[in-house]
């Protein structure tokens, strides 16, 4: 009896302590993102957004730890949309994005007095993938891809030989990213012509590893997902060269970087908040990011931009900082 009482009493005490603690700990200064580092705690940079861009940002943050030990960089994965939402409210310093900011999102930023700069940091190659036992498909044109994936194909274009008669009379098992992902938007816009314009009857998943398993397990499968996932599973999958009008090009680090693998390479972005850019440690971080994104992107499975493209982004950022320095733009 006594022991149970003590146990419960202990819980009550802890609970009351927690309640008291909350009521006076409302805005913990050291963890707020938009405060300056005057309270002696570590300086913070808060980043959120796309889970596609995340591996690059994580790599940069990881390496940056060695450069600046007292700067804490945290990265979230709320999605490009969720990231922009927080960004537009000033809750984050940098937003990772796998698509450019939309008009309405930009308008919300403006309403809240936030100006920003868009910086490209790397490329993501979208590969068309087939099963290794598929010996009939070597290259495919954008027009043929459109025929397979457009909305009217649902229920009508079901078999391989409806695309080219010499192909097998078997059902095409389609695999692709989920409809809420930037990858899906980009693919449909590049191939079918309009973002979101796609047949509704394909196997979708947000997790590209699941798509890998799907395509690897079915001789008649056809999928599209990030090049990185092919490179990590080369013994289970086969690449298809895509003809965007200038001949068939196989996706690779080189062909994505120099732009010949088109139209299926897409840029990845970070957006930097003007209020954050006013802080010295953020500026240094962004500069470090642009300096190292190329190598780190390659390491994690994305593709570096060309050196001149990075230089252009660095100049873009420097110009942005100059406009911030001008008194007329004071918030």
């Amino acid at each position: 009896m006594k022991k149970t009482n003590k146990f419960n009493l202990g819980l009550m005490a802890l609970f009351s302590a927690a309640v008291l603690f909350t009521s006076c700990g409302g805005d913990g200064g050291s963890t707020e993102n938009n405060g300056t580092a005057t309270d002696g705690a570590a300086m913070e940079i808060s980043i959120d957004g796309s889970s596609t861009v995340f591996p690059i940002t994580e790599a940069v943050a990881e390496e940056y730890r060695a450069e600046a030990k007292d700067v804490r960089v945290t990265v979230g994965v709320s999605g490009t949309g969720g990231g922009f939402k927080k960004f537009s409210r000033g809750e984050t310093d940098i937003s990772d994005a796998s698509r450019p900011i939309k008009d309405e999102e930009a308008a919300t930023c403006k309403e809240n007095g936030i100006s920003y700069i868009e910086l490209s940091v790397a490329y993501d190659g979208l590969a068309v993938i087939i099963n290794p036992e598929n010996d009939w498909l070597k290259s495919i044109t954008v027009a043929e891809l459109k025929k397979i994936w457009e909305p009217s194909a649902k229920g009508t274009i079901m078999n391989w030989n409806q695309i080219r008669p010499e192909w097998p009379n078997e059902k095409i098992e389609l695999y692709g990213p989920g409809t809420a992902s930037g990858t899906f938007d980009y693919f449909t816009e590049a191939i079918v012509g309009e973002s979101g314009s796609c047949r509704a009857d394909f196997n979708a998943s947000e997790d590209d590893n699941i798509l890998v398993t799907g395509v690897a397990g079915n001789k008649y499968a056809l999928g599209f997902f990030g090049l990185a996932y092919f490179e990590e599973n080369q013994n289970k999958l086969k690449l298809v060269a895509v003809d965007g009008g200038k001949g068939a090009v196989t996706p690779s680090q080189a062909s994505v970087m120099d732009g010949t693998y088109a139209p299926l390479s897409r840029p990845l972005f970070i957006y930097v908040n003007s209020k954050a850019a006013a802080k010295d440690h953020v500026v240094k971080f962004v500069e470090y990011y642009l300096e190292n994104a190329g190598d780190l992107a390659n390491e994690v499975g994305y593709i570096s931009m060309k050196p001149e493209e990075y230089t252009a982004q660095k100049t873009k950022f420097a110009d942005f900082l100059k406009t911030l320095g001008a008194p007329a733009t004071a918030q």
Partner: protein
Amino acid sequence: MSKLISIRQKETLIKGFLFACAAITLLTTLGIIWVLLSESYYFFQKVAIIDFLTDTEWTPLFTEKHFGIMPLLTGTLLTTVIALLVALPLGLSIAIYLNEYAPKGFRKAVKPLLEILAAVPTVVYGFFALVVVTPFLQSIWPSISGFNSLSAGIVMGIMIIPFISSLGEDALFAVPNTLRQASYGMGATRLQTSFRVLIPSASSGIIASIILAFSRAIGETMIVAVAAGQQPQLTLDPTVPIQTITSYIVQVSSGDVQHGSLEYNTIFAAGLALFVFTFVLNNISFWINKKYRQEYE
């Protein structure tokens, strides 16, 4: 005299605190309803309720947009019903077995082991369904698709077994021994005692556990998101991909969709539909339970 008064004050204070605790649940519901209603308001301004309820397709993220909730709702129901079909017979049998048949030591050891089933992270269950259960099912029926509601439903059922077996066993355990002895004294077998005396007596607890298990299944997100597919289809076929309301909400809220857009607000409309649906079901089951509840002592 003064000591008595302060005790009474203490009682009132405590009652007040306890009431506040209970009131939190009401506040939570109000909060949920407020958020769902205010955000889906934007949705219903653009989409007619009649379309929402009767359209047979759900394609908000495609260019040709349909906003019929029925495919998502049938997906949710399909997986939940399959889960219950697995968990109810197994869970109840286990509860009865552990309570009346099993030796004490066995019960003490097995009950906590089964509770671990409820603790496995749902992400793990999801992949188990996708990578183990589905291929296994495909080896028996090759026409089963890689994503399907049968796998997800079965695994969900496994996950909720402890809700019924443990809470149900607790309820059976609490039935006064006098009833048990009376039943055995009249020559009844364990089976007859369990079904004719114990279960009716413990019905309140058992039904509560079933309702809890059902609620858990209908609100489950990860298992269905990973294994059941992302293809909303109005179907009762457990071998094809479908999408549940919960999996759709997660997909959109963590994706790249622009917050505040019509496409984004669909998640609130879907959430509202789920909330209303479970509310109606809960009302029905509450009244059924009340009617058949028995009280002893």
